C-alpha cells in the first residue's frame, strides 16, 4: 500500500494501520462490538512486522498486559468499547500512578450497563473524569472523521511518550464503523528491542549488570511521600492544560447561536447550521478536538452577538458541564441531545434550536 494514496476504508481498520505505522508493535484486546475490526486486523498483521498480538481473557487482563509491555518499553495499542473501558479503569489509574505511556481507542457505544452496540457519546464522563481511583487525568482526543482519527493516533503516541501518561482517542461507534476516504500516515518504523534503553532509560529490560535495578512501583504507604509524588507529577497536567487543548471554531463572530459539539455529532451540527442559515439564523460551532484538557480558550471571547450556547451531544448532558465551566456563568447553556444509541438528525437539531430560541424566528 503506497503511503500518500487516498483510499476508501472502514474507520476501525484505518485506526489499526495508523497505529502500526506510528510504531505500535504490541496489541492486547478482548472482543467487543463495535471495535472488533481492530483486534482482527492486529491479529493478522502485527506478527508480520515483528510485533505481538494477544487475545486477552478479559479487558482487565488486556490493560494489565499493556501495563507490562509499556513498562518493558514497548509501544502499545489498546482498544475497546464503553463497558470494556469501564473494566480497564483499574489499569488507567495505575498507568498514571507509575507514569507510563499508553494509547487507547474507545469506540463508544450506548450505556449504561451492557446497553447497546449503537453509537453513543455517553462515555464523556468516563473518559474525561475516569472511573479509576486517585488523583490523575487522562488526555482525551475526539476526532470527527476517520482522517482526523488517523492523524490523531500518530500525535497521541508522541503525547503519551512525552507526558508519560495514557491518551484515549474517543470515537463514537459511527466513526469506527463507517467508511471514508483516508490518506494513511507515512510508516515511521519502530523501536527495536535493543534500542529501548536509549529511548526509555526507565524501562524494564534487565539491568545487564551495568546499572542499578529499574523499579516501577505504585505502592506508597507513607502518606507524606505519596503527597510529594503526586505534587511532583502534577505540573505535567497543568502544562497539558496550557499546551494541549485543540478545537475548531466556525462563524463565532457573527453567530447568534453557538453550538458546542464533538465527534460525528459535530458533522451533523454543520448541516443543521446550513438549515438554520437558510431560515435566517446565524449559527456558529465550537468543536473540541481534545475533551481533556477541555479547550476553555475557545469560549473566552464570545461576543454580544451570541444569544445562545447549546451543547449538542449523544449523552444525557455530560459535556455541557465542561461548557458551563468554560463559560463561567457568562452565558446560559442549553442542551440538545439523544441517548441510548439514538442519533440526532440535522433537521431535529434545527427544529429544537428554534424551539429553544422561543420561536422568535
Amino acid at each position, binding site marked *: 500500500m503506497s503511503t500518500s494514496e487516498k483510499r476508501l476504508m472502514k474507520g476501525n481498520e484505518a485506526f489499526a494501520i495508523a497505529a502500526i505505522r506510528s510504531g505500535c508493535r*504490541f496489541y*492486547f484486546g478482548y472482543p467487543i462490538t463495535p471495535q472488533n475490526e481492530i483486534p482482527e486486523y492486529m491479529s493478522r498483521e502485527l506478527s508480520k512486522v515483528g510485533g*505481538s498480538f*494477544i487475545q*486477552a*481473557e*478479559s479487558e*482487565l*487482563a*488486556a490493560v*494489565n*498486559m*499493556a*501495563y*507490562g*509491555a*509499556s*513498562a*518493558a*518499553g*514497548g509501544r*502499545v495499542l489498546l482498544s475497546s468499547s464503553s463497558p470494556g473501558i469501564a473494566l480497564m479503569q*483499574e*489499569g488507567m489509574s*495505575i498507568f498514571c500512578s*507509575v507514569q507510563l505511556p499508553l494509547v487507547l481507542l474507545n469506540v463508544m457505544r450506548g450505556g449504561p450497563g451492557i446497553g447497546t452496540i449503537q453509537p453513543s457519546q455517553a462515555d464523556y464522563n468516563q473518559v474525561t473524569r475516569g472511573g479509576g481511583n486517585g488523583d490523575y487525568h487522562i488526555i482525551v482526543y475526539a476526532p470527527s472523521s476517520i482522517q482526523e482519527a488517523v492523524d490523531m493516533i500518530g500525535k497521541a503516541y508522541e503525547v503519551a511518550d512525552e507526558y508519560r501518561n495514557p491518551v484515549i482517542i474517543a470515537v463514537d461507534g459511527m466513526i469506527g464503523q463507517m467508511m471514508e476516504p483516508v490518506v494513511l500516515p507515512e510508516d515511521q518504523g519502530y523501536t527495536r*528491542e535493543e534500542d*529501548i534503553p536509549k529511548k526509555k532509560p526507565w524501562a*524494564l*529490560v*534487565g*539491568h*545487564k*549488570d*551495568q546499572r542499578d*535495578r*529499574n*523499579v*516501577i*512501583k*505504585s*505502592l506508597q504507604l507513607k502518606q507524606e511521600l505519596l503527597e510529594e509524588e503526586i505534587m511532583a507529577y502534577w505540573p505535567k497536567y497543568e502544562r497539558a492544560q496550557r499546551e494541549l487543548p485543540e478545537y475548531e471554531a466556525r462563524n463565532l463572530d457573527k453567530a447568534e447561536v453557538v453550538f458546542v459539539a464533538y465527534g460525528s455529532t459535530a458533522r451533523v451540527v454543520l448541516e443543521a447550521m446550513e438549515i438554520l442559515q437558510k431560515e435566517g439564523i446565524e449559527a456558529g460551532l465550537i468543536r473540541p478536538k481534545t475533551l481533556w484538557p477541555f479547550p476553555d480558550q475557545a469560549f473566552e471571547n464570545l461576543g454580544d452577538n451570541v444569544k445562545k450556547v447549546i451543547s449538542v451531544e449523544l449523552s444525557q448532558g455530560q459535556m455541557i458541564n465542561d461548557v458551563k465551566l468554560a463559560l463561567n456563568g457568562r452565558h446560559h447553556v442549553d442542551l440538545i441531545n439523544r441517548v441510548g444509541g439514538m442519533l440526532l438528525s440535522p433537521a431535529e437539531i434545527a427544529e429544537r434550536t428554534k424551539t429553544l430560541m422561543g420561536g422568535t424566528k
Partner: protein
Amino acid sequence: MKPVFEFTKGMREMTTSYCPGCTHGIAHRLIMEVLEEKGALGNAIGVSPVGCSIVAHQFMNVDMMESPHGRAPAVASGIKRVHPDSYVFTYQGDGDLASIGTGEIIHAAHRGEKFCTFFINNAIFGMTGGQMAPTSLIGQKTTTSVEGRTVEQAGAPLRISEMLATIDGAVYVERVSLHSPAEVRKAKKAIRTAFEVQEKKLGFAFVEFLSTCPTNWGLSPVAALDFIKDKMIPYYPVKNFKSVEEVK
C-alpha cells in the same frame, strides 16, 4: 582463605520487612540464588502484585515492577512479548493468585506463557491482617472465619497446582515446602527447573511453595513450620504434578 558461603548478589544487603518466621525471605533468596547461578540476574524481570511481597523489589536485585492485585500473570505476558529472551517471573501470594487473580493465572497457563510463576501459599491473606483465603484449611481460624472455616460457608480449600496441571499449556507444575532444610533444597531444585523450562521456551512453569504466616496464624515461628508439615501437607501434597522430558 576460600569462602564457604557467600551472600547471593541477587539479594540486596538489607533487612527484609517480613515478620519473624515468615518464609518469604527463604523463597526470595532461593529464586535469586538460582538466577545468580545461571548468570541471569541482569537479564531478569520480576513482577510482584499486591500482598506482603509487593515490596519484593526492595530486596531482589533485578528489574522489577509492582502489579495490581491478581494481575501479575497478565503483566508478565506483556513483558515477555517485548523481551522474549529475558527471564520473566511473577511472585504471588495465595490471597492474590488463588482469589482475585484466578482468571489471569489460568489463562497464562492456557496460553502456555513462557514465564515462571512462584506461588507462595500460606493459606491466609497476610498483608490485610489474616482474613480467610480460598486456600485456608477447613477449621482454620481467620479474622473472617473466627469459628474456623467450614465447607458449608466457604467451600473446600482450592488446590491450585492440581487445577493448573490439567491445563496443557502448563508444562511444569510442582508443589514444594519451605518447612525444613531438606525441603528448602528441593524447592531450589524446582525453581531451577522452572527457569530451564522458560529458557527452552517449553511452556508455562509453576512452582507452589507451602509457606508460613506465623503472625496471622497466631503461632511461633517453630510451631508455624510444624503447621505446614502436620496440617498443610496432608491437604496439599508436596510433589511434582507435571514435567516434560527436556528438563527431567
